[in-house]
């Protein structure tokens, strides 16, 4: 199996104006901070960010987003002011639905039917579907140009393992983009991860940041 280790400069070169970028992490945990550095250093603008919350707040506050799709902006004053500033568009989605929309994108499903949000603003502008006498909201799948993922360990091929609640959105985001870039605590040679340990199979991963290159 081929190796997917890349230098920081090679990763910086992936970012361009207008891309949609998914970022893993929740409440600043399991967040790919080194990859966020790469986006900032690339100077890319007019980006769309899809994430569970504003764990990528350094990007948000830098002004490189035109749009965010998130479930929650957290409790910090600075972040709340930013999402209320009108400087970029913010689309809110219930967190469980958002997670499933990202997952659907990653596994090639067009959309899902949910009851979450019926009777609230969350159903605004969305198709309603009747099935077996029940009413559902049709929620479309989400994909992205680039996914930025934080994992605990990767082998050269990009098989990934996560620990604890750092899992959060990382495994689903890892599947949902055309190009998946990961930051890990440890890179090991092929054969040093058990097949069952590979929460994200390496086929979903395109580039691993190797800070030694």
């Amino acid at each position, binding site marked *: 199996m081929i190796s997917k280790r890349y230098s920081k400069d090679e990763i910086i070169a992936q970012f361009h104006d207008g891309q949609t970028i998914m970022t893993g992490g929740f409440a600043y945990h399991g967040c790919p901070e080194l990859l966020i550095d790469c986006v900032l250093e690339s100077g890319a603008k007019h980006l769309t960010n899809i994430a569970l919350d504003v764990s990528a707040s350094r990007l948000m506050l830098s002004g490189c987003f035109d749009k965010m799709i998130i479930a929650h902006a*957290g409790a910090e004053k600075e972040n709340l002011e930013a999402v209320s500033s009108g400087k970029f568009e913010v689309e809110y989605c*219930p967190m469980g639905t958002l*997670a499933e929309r990202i997952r659907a994108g990653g596994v090639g499903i067009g959309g899902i039917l949910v009851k*979450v949000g019926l009777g609230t*603003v*969350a159903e605004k502008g969305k198709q309603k579907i009747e099935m077996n006498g029940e009413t559902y909201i049709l929620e479309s799948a989400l994909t992205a140009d680039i996914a930025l993922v934080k994992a605990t360990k990767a082998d050269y091929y990009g098989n990934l393992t996560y*620990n*604890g*609640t750092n*899992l959060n959105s990382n495994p689903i985001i890892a599947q949902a983009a055309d190009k998946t870039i990961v930051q890990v605590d440890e890179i090991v040679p092929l054969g040093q991860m058990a097949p069952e340990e590979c929460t994200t199979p390496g086929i979903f991963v395109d580039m691993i940041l190797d800070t030694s290159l």
Partner: protein
Amino acid sequence: MSLRDENRNFIAKKIASYFTDGDVVNLGVGVPMLVANYLSKDVAVQTENGILGYGKVIGGNDPEKPYFNAAGNTVELVPGASCFGMCTSFGMIRRGRIKTTVLGCFEVSQYGDLANWARPGSYPGMGGAMDLVSGISNVIVATDHCTKDGAPKILEACTLPLTGVGVVKSIVTELAVFTINREKGLYLRERRDGVSIAEIREKTGAPFSVDPDIKIM
């Protein structure tokens, strides 16, 4: 401890008494999170960011213990705890495997409508609240009876954007315990010792029936 904090712990302790060994409960941020401090160790706490079975909230950010609750605080896991991603977590919520959630509120209506995620000038997003009230059958609201300005939070109808329609089953405040019937409205089950029904009526923005066998909280 301030009177407000004392009241909030009183609410949390009251709600904790509802659970028996083997129960699983999801706790929202704020007052609900205090409930964890009063639960038996055989009640499992779920946090929607991916743990079933946490005990004490430790706080801080220990990289050796990568277990956080929805508020981002490090927690201690109990024996038998499991960790999982967001899809599995909200999966067990939507599927109804978690029977009870305790949530805070900005407003709750007499028929169980809940508004707890958006206020004028503060629009942080619904987070997981809509998923929780949609998937979990027993939604308990834990809240100060009135706002800081003394305005009632229990109303005939919510004025703020809704989290869910007709979803709240009971409300526990520092003054009273109500149950809610989606058609018939509020029913006062318990009152705080020394608090009159008249005082509760005065501080509640909606009519309610009173249990003839009303109890002291």
